[in-house]
């Protein structure tokens, strides 16, 4: 088995990469420490926006309720104002008329923001895949989706 050195591996990996790669100096311990703190705070304090379009909204509410209780993970303070939320859970089908609203809500959320598409309808129309004239073909056609 041929042993590649680090540069060789990198070159191979970047063979098909269309952009340019600039080498940076050694990574800074302070920056990475800060980064991990920031990531930790983002991960543990996701405030969802209260929006649910259809059936999945009930399941989302159930996630917040006593038995499942997502507050345990810090996802408690469901904000109704998009400015203060971090997370949109797209719970339900998105139709053409709602797509504009959803896009606007996404834009109104202050950075850093995350999107979860929950359920088959939001991801790829689900049961409304054909013969419907008004359903959007998955929420990622409206705004970026981190997790589906």
């Amino acid at each position: 088995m041929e042993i590649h050195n680090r540069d060789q591996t990198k070159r191979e990996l970047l063979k098909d990469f269309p952009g340019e790669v600039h080498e940076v100096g050694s990574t800074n311990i302070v920056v990475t420490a800060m980064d991990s703190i920031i990531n930790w705070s983002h991960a543990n304090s996701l405030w969802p926006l209260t929006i649910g379009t259809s059936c999945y909204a009930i399941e989302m509410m159930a996630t917040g309720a006593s038995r499942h209780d997502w507050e345990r993970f810090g996802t408690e303070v469901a904000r109704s104002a998009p400015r203060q939320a971090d997370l949109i859970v797209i719970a339900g089908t998105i139709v053409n008329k709602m797509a504009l609203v959803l896009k606007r809500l996404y834009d109104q959320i202050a950075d850093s923001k995350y999107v979860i598409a929950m359920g088959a309808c939001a991801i790829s129309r689900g049961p409304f895949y054909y013969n419907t004239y008004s359903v959007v073909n998955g929420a990622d056609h409206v705004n970026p989706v981190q997790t589906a």
Partner: protein
Amino acid sequence: MEQEQLKERILSVVPEAEFEITGGYMNATVPSAKLHDLAKNLRESEDTLFDYLFCLTGVDWPDHMTVVYHLKSTTHGHNVVLKAKIDSRENPEIDTVSDIWQTAEFHEREVFDLFGIIFRNHPDLRRIFLDDDWVGYPLRKDYVDKVNIIEL
């Protein structure tokens, strides 16, 4: 009121009405021009008193359109289905019944939105579900959506 009596009652207002019993309800098909008068008559007469309109919808047939009214009387407990036959598919028009039953206002907006049937004298006839700039009436049988709807 029994169905036979009801039939005579409707015939006395609209002589050209046609009757049919299907699905447990008596259907009376009347020309669209006579519908409003008949509905008003049935709603206000003491012996019929159809005060509860529980379903209003449109149907798109190949050569005509119908608006279907499911009526019930909460005092007498009898039912009737009125069908208004609109001959023109290109330019369907009928009088509104929202002055008789308030619920008709929303239902007629829905029928207008999805079938394009225009209800004369309706207080606020706009699209209800679809965007205002939507082209076409999707529940019509000849509605074409090449992208989403599979034609076999």
